[in-house]
């Protein structure tokens, strides 16, 4: 037993309340989270392998998964690029209003998704502030098309990359960049070879978080997407549609698959965060 473990073991002896607090924690966690989630998997398994495959391979379900995952991927990629730029600008450059800009990055976390949904729809509709000139100039329609879903998913994923990249950029030692510059590297070479490798794990973590959020997002999308089966119907909406049609088997099968995907993403994100932490400690 290491010294630290011994210390903690000793602490358990003198600090009270371990049994009570752990008991409440486990009971509440089980009742609210673990039992309902396991019940969903049990309900799905009651459908049998054939039942699950049948429910998940109908063309409408496949189309919604393709739509949700492809658009979430594009949205997360755009967030990775623009979020990194935003993080860089906020940490490295001084300009008027920097603090306010930093504070409003969190707005998509704080603004209820339904509010974001109706606001974005109003802006990008055919008679909207941006929708109208865009349609007149380019003929491009945003609201009620996959492009509208992309806009909503960029909105909800916006803070993730910024907030994972910012602390890493802040801890970055400028000396490495100075050394690279003094050895003759151009600024772009320095950014690509010295800065980018150090912030890459953080960018990937933010990307994965934004992607995970986008795949499950509902409120901001349903207003702007138009919800046409096979065309603009995202997976979470299809679950609700199935429930409203009393197709519990279909809804449960889709939900179970979504849960598996969420958990895989969560473990991936945890691994990325450990890697990111490891790199920060090592440098």
């Amino acid at each position, binding site marked *: 037993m290491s010294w630290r473990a011994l210390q903690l073991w000793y602490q358990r002896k003198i600090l009270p309340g371990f049994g009570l607090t752990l008991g409440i924690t486990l009971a509440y966690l089980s009742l609210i989270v673990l039992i309902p989630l396991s019940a969903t998997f049990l309900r799905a398994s009651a459908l049998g392998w054939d039942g699950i495959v049948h429910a998940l391979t109908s063309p409408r379900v496949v189309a919604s998964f393709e739509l949700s995952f492809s658009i979430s991927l594009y949205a997360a990629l755009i967030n990775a690029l623009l979020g990194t730029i935003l993080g860089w600008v906020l940490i490295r450059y001084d300009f008027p209003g920097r603090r306010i800009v930093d504070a409003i990055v969190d707005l998509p976390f704080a603004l209820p998704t339904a509010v974001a949904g109706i606001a974005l729809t109003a802006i990008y509709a055919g008679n909207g502030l941006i929708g109208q000139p865009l349609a007149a100039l380019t003929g491009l329609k945003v609201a009620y098309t996959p492009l509208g879903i992309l806009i909503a998913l960029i909105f909800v994923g916006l803070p993730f990359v910024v907030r*994972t990249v910012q602390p890493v950029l802040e801890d970055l030692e400028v000396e490495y960049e100075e050394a690279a510059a003094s050895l003759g590297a151009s600024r772009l070479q320095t950014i690509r070879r010295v800065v980018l490798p150090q912030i890459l794990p953080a960018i990937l973590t933010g990307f994965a978080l934004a992607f995970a959020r986008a795949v499950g997002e509902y409120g901001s999308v349903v207003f702007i997407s138009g919800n046409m089966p096979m065309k603009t119907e995202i997976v979470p909406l299809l679950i609700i549609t199935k429930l409203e049609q009393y197709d519990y088997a279909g809804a449960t099968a889709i939900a179970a698959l979504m849960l598996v995907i969420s958990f895989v993403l969560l473990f991936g994100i945890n691994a990325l965060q450990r890697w990111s932490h490891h790199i920060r400690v090592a440098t």
Partner: protein
Amino acid sequence: MSSAVVSPIPKAHPTVRDPWLFRIGLITMASAFLLLFVVIPVWTVFHEALAKGVGTYFAAFQDSAGRSAIGLTLLVAAIAVPCNLIFGLCASWAIAKFQFPGKSLLVTFIDLPFAVSPVVSGLIYVLLFGSRGWFGPLLSAWNVQIIFAVPGIVLATIFVTFPFVARELITIMQAQGSEEEQAALSLGASGWQTFWRITLPKAKWGLLYGVILCNARAMGEFGAVSVVSGHIRGLTNTIPLHVEILYNEYNFVAAFAMASLLTLLALLTLVIKSFLEWRMRAAPTATELPSFG
């Protein structure tokens, strides 16, 4: 969600300063991105809500269905937030102050609700308590309704806001250690005294931080609540659900008026959050010991 506070920028050596054109370009790009995706949507909410004047705006709140939606949202938050607060305090005490096998798994489990789609968060309770759910027959025999009623809305809200307070407190209490608690106990304080006078004052800003984020999400949740609510006007509609109904009825002024309440809540939450981040960063590392008197 990490709390980032902009700190002053250290004067960098000229060799590592980006060319000014590059700097201006990136600042413009970042600002345009935020303007397009954050500022314009928020401005739109108020613009649409006030499109037919201040009178129409305030008339939207005279509606009885609107008022009951506001009441239900306040009620749901008033139950869900304290539940998750008590859970957060218990979980952080057990996890930050003690060592036990399976601890990191427990922390991962606490984070699970953040990974689950809001719609699935509602569905899991329908599968348990709905009329065709596991406990459906039992509940109808007892004449208890959970789904399409207020208890279901509370449950779904508790689920989606589950990790907020706990993860904030766990991080803070792990960083603070428990030397001061041990000192208090060795000087004869009881467990409760130690908690109220040492642990709670040390963690108060983090606790408030978790509570306001939890509250903002509890009042604004849409997807999970939408699945379990049944959308009964005047009975099971929270503000976000009422916004949806008004919007689908083409009553845009009323929809955006209700939405403006939630937007004001979001802006207020951000202001308090920035203040708390500033407090937490300004807090001295060695906390002042409260006097025992």
